[in-house]
């Protein structure tokens, strides 16, 4: 599995170098060397972080870099579409920068660092330092080799395919996002759609409150139904899709809308037509790279929506309560509660079923929580590297914060920890579950 | 841009020029794709209909007492071989069904014999409301019985010379019941030889309160889950036997499979003949237009560009034929299901894709040969008219 995603990422890296090389055709050597160096730097950076801060790699930095580049792409895309119609855009006079050694070096090194660090994060953990070092060195070497291989491949590409600066940026950012999407912790698409969902949710709330519409009285259930739609997961997903794809599509549109060269001054008809036909053909081939970007973004969105990561998600074990209504889960025995893994249980009382789990957080405290949160449909949680994930909204919750209430965190349940195990009050468990699930389903159905 | 629009115009002009041939090709393509569509839609909606029919043919599970023997032989269920009377407890069965959470329609049956004029008659106690719902194929002369009334099987009525409105006095082990015949039933099955009365009345007459000999269940499920339901129910009813009744389903499924096979074969034959006729027509066209092809090449069209024009023509025909085929095929399917199966066919929009695909495939496949000759045609010779 790791090998497959790793090779996919490395292919994406090769394509990144290819695109940069085509986009800055005058400085192939600079791009090759810069990309190789950047990649190695990125890999080395991750290694150093692994070493200095074991267990807590500041992935936020990479994520921020990705986010900033995506934002930058948005800016450039908007500017490009503006320029394609108005021709001159004072903020976007980058002629001094495009296709210079400076752009070649900075572009290649920056892309290399980000790509290198993303791909290095994909490497599995190693117990032995020497092997770890070796693996990282091999990865850095592979990246550099692929960069020079890209130079050879670039010569074979038909010369008709050209890359405009904005298309270059779109393709590189899209491919980087594709690389990162295979890592749950580096993925940007799911958080984006989550943010959209939350944003709309909050906006509607605020709006309703600010215009002081009292619940129930004026608004008919049907309208609440429509408002309920706004709170669904689909809104977040499609909103995320729009934000995700728009820049690449804008870049493509900008190329498509670019005015054809003025040929009116050419007297001879045949020559005029030939120029026009060539311009149209060039323009059409320029759309290849934005298309690559769109495909990469689609692949990223797909990978993020259907992650190939296997979650640790044990089948809930049925538990019963003592006549006094107390549930005892022994610490040792069939399952070891303190192994840091999620342990799910199922408690039935009458016709009510409660799913809950017991987990040892990294700081060594046991916590008991419902297998549901206060805002989502109770689809439950699965455990992945260092986090648990809400299956409904795909939010990642760091293990450290499990046991704290709020947001999409699992709803904590009061319990007492004794030497023999964990004691939970069955009654309060059922009440807790009923309250939570009722609240979330109400929101989902929009009846508020 | 402009170029593509012009190409399209060129294609339409070329097709319009040869009205007869275009119409012929369109007709062939539309016919083939409409047939494929129609057969597809018919078998699709028939599959659904058969599933419905299976449901309609009622019970797919029966529960019988453990010691009784169930013969699932030709002609349905035969209960002649009950060695010693064994009964199911009605409450137990109801309870088990509630606990299993099975979604099923059920009807309770109690078989027994009642004495009438020196002879024993096989009688069956049923709930007529259930019977009406679950056995829609019962044909009843007269009315469904009210309390104190009975329905007699067709054969039995003839044998005993019973008529509508007659009153019978039947003696059971515990009680005597007086029943007026309100209807005569014929189903073509074993029901024709039985006398039916309301379940509680028979239970009282026989002194078998709350006892049953047979429960028929109609589970709305197909395939595996039926077996699963049977096993689940069996676990809850250790003193009974839960059997699957699948003949009707099996025979109709088998028939459907055969019909489908036939349809596929017919479609294949039609497609092959349509494909060869497309190929023939296309190659005549190409032969006739060889001068035009030579001219295009002489004017500077590359082999690919010229081929594109002719492929485009084939594809255009394919698309038009496919659309026509879908509309026509849906109409045919509607007609077939109306007349043959007396049901309306479903409207299946995604069959448009299939129809289009079939037609395009035929058009392009049929023009592979002609396209090769377009590709290889020598402009000098063709312009000279060779």
């Amino acid at each position, binding site marked *: 599995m790791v090998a497959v995603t790793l090779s996919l990422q490395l292919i994406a890296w090769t394509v990144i170098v290819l695109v940069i090389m085509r986009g800055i055709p005058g400085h192939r050597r600079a791009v090759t060397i810069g990309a190789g160096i950047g990649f190695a730097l990125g890999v080395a950076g991750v290694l150093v972080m692994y070493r200095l801060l074991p267990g807590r790699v500041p992935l936020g930095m990479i994520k921020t870099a990705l986010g900033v580049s995506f934002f930058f792409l948005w800016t450039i895309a908007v500017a490009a579409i503006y320029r394609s119609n108005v021709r001159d855009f004072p903020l976007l006079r980058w002629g001094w920068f495009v296709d210079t050694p400076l752009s070649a070096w900075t572009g290649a090194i920056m892309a290399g660092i980000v790509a290198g660090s993303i791909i290095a994060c994909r490497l599995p953990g190693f117990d032995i330092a020497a092997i770890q070092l070796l693996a990282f060195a091999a990865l850095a070497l592979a990246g550099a080799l692929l960069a020079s291989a890209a130079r050879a491949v670039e010569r074979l590409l038909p010369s008709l395919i050209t890359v405009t600066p904005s298309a270059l940026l779109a393709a590189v950012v899209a491919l980087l996002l594709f690389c990162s999407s295979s890592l749950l912790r580096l993925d940007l698409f799911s958080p984006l759609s989550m943010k959209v969902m939350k944003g709309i949710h909050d906006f509607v709330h605020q709006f309703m409150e600010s215009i002081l519409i009292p619940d129930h009285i004026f608004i008919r259930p049907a309208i609440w139904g429509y408002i309920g739609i706004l709170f669904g997961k689909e809104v977040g997903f499609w909103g995320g899709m729009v934000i995700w794809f728009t820049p690449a599509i804008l870049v493509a549109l900008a190329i498509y809308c670019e005015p054809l060269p003025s040929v009116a001054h050419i007297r*001879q*008809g*045949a*020559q*005029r*037509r*030939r120029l*026009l*036909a*060539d311009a*149209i053909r060039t323009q059409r081939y320029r759309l290849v790279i934005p298309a690559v970007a769109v495909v990469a973004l689609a692949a990223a969105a797909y990978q993020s929506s259907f992650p190939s990561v296997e979650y640790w998600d044990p089948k809930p074990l049925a538990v019963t309560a003592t006549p006094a209504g107390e549930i005892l889960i022994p610490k040792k025995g069939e399952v070891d509660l303190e192994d840091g893994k999620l342990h799910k249980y199922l408690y039935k009382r009458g016709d009510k079923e409660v799913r809950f789990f017991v987990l040892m957080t990294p700081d060594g405290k046991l916590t008991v929580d419902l297998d549901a949160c206060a805002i989502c449909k109770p689809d439950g949680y699965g455990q992945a590297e260092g986090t648990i994930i809400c299956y409904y909204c795909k939010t990642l919750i760091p293990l450290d914060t499990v046991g704290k209430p709020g947001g999409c965190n699992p709803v904590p349940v009061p319990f007492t920890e004794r030497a023999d195990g964990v004691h939970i009050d069955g009654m309060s468990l059922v009440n807790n579950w009923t309250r939570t699930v009722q609240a979330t389903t109400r929101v989902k159905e929009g009846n508020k | 841009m*402009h*170029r593509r629009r*012009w*190409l399209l115009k*060129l294609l339409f*002009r*070329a097709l*319009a*020029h040869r009205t007869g041939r275009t119409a012929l090709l369109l007709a062939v393509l539309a016919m083939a794709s409409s047939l494929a569509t129609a057969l597809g839609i018919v078998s699709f909606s028939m599959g659904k209909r058969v599933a419905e029919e299976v449901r309609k043919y009622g019970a797919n599970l029966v529960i019988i007492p453990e010691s009784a023997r169930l013969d699932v032989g030709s002609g349905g269920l035969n209960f002649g071989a009950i060695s010693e009377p064994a009964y199911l407890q009605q409450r137990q069965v109801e309870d088990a069904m509630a606990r299993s959470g099975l979604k099923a329609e059920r009807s309770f049956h109690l078989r027994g014999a009642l004495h009438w004029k020196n002879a024993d008659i096989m009688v069956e106690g049923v709930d007529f409301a259930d019977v009406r719902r679950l056995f829609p194929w019962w044909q009843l002369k007269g009315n469904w019985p009210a309390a104190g009334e009975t329905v007699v099987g067709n054969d039995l009525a003839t044998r005993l010379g019973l008529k509508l409105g007659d009153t019978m006095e039947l003696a059971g082990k515990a009680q005597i019941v007086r029943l007026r015949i309100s209807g005569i039933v014929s189903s073509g099955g074993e029901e024709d030889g039985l006398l039916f009365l309301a379940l509680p009345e028979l239970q009282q007459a026989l002194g078998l309160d709350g006892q049953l000999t047979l429960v028929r269940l109609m589970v709305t499920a197909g395939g595996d889950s039926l077996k699963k339901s049977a096993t689940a129910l069996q676990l809850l009813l250790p003193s009974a036997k839960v059997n699957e009744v699948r003949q009707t389903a099996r025979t109709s499924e088998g028939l459907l499979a055969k019909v489908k096979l036939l349809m596929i074969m017919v479609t294949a034959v039609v497609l092959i003949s349509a494909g060869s006729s497309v190929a023939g027509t296309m190659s005549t066209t190409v032969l006739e237009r060889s*001068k*035009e092809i*030579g*001219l*295009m*090449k*002489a*004017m*500077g*069209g*590359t*082999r*690919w*560009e010229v081929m594109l024009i002719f492929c485009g023509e084939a594809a255009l025909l394919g698309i038009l034929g496919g659309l026509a085929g879908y509309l026509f095929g849906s109409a045919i399917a509607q007609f077939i299901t109306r007349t043959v199966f007396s049901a309306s066919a479903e409207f299946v929009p995604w069959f448009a894709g299939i129809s289009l695909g079939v037609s395009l495939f035929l058009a392009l496949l049929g023009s592979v040969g002609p396209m090769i000759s377009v590709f290889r045609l020598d*402009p*000098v010779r063709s*312009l*000279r*008219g060779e």
Partner: protein
Amino acid sequence: MAETIIETSGLTRSYGDICALKPLDLVVSEGEWLSVMGHSGSGKSTLLNLVGGLDRPSNGSLRVGGEDLLALSEDGLARFRREFVGIIFQQHHLVPYLTAVENVMLAQYFHSVPDEAEARSALERVGLGHRLKNRPGELSGGEQQRVCIARAIINSPKLLLGDEPTGNLDHSSTVMVMELLKELRAEERFTVVMVTHNQEVAAWGDRTIYLDDGVLVREERMRS
């Protein structure tokens, strides 16, 4: 002396055992009007096809407009034809289902992009401004040939080839077509190579070569 546009040496074309063109050395300079005469089967059409890039020689070298036609691929030859050559045929070879304008636009389509206004003005130039929307079947022989001329010159070729362009025309139409060609040549300055068996038509050119059985037998220069 003007630049050379066609240069052949030892040009041969044989179909199986039959040799249609014996080794031929020919030089045509830019802007020249060359008439090729000879009776049927003398190899004059073969020469025209070779020069126009429609056919490949069996042997020898052939350079047209600085391009070595033997080195070009099949698609390269097609590109050469569309950029460099305009051809007028005896049988016109107009597409029957397209109007006059559209027939001209077909040549534009293969060259680059169709441009209706330009095609229309080209037809007006050959005096067919009133017959734009007519199909070939509705045009007389002379008119059809004028459509052919408009089609042949629409892409501004350097080389105009005529394969007995007046073979099917009566005398007055012939004169009209030849006058038109002469006029256009004066404006566009293309080179003409015209195959004919009509002495009178050949006389419109600057130079006439006579082919017999694939061999150049005689060459004649006209007084200008």
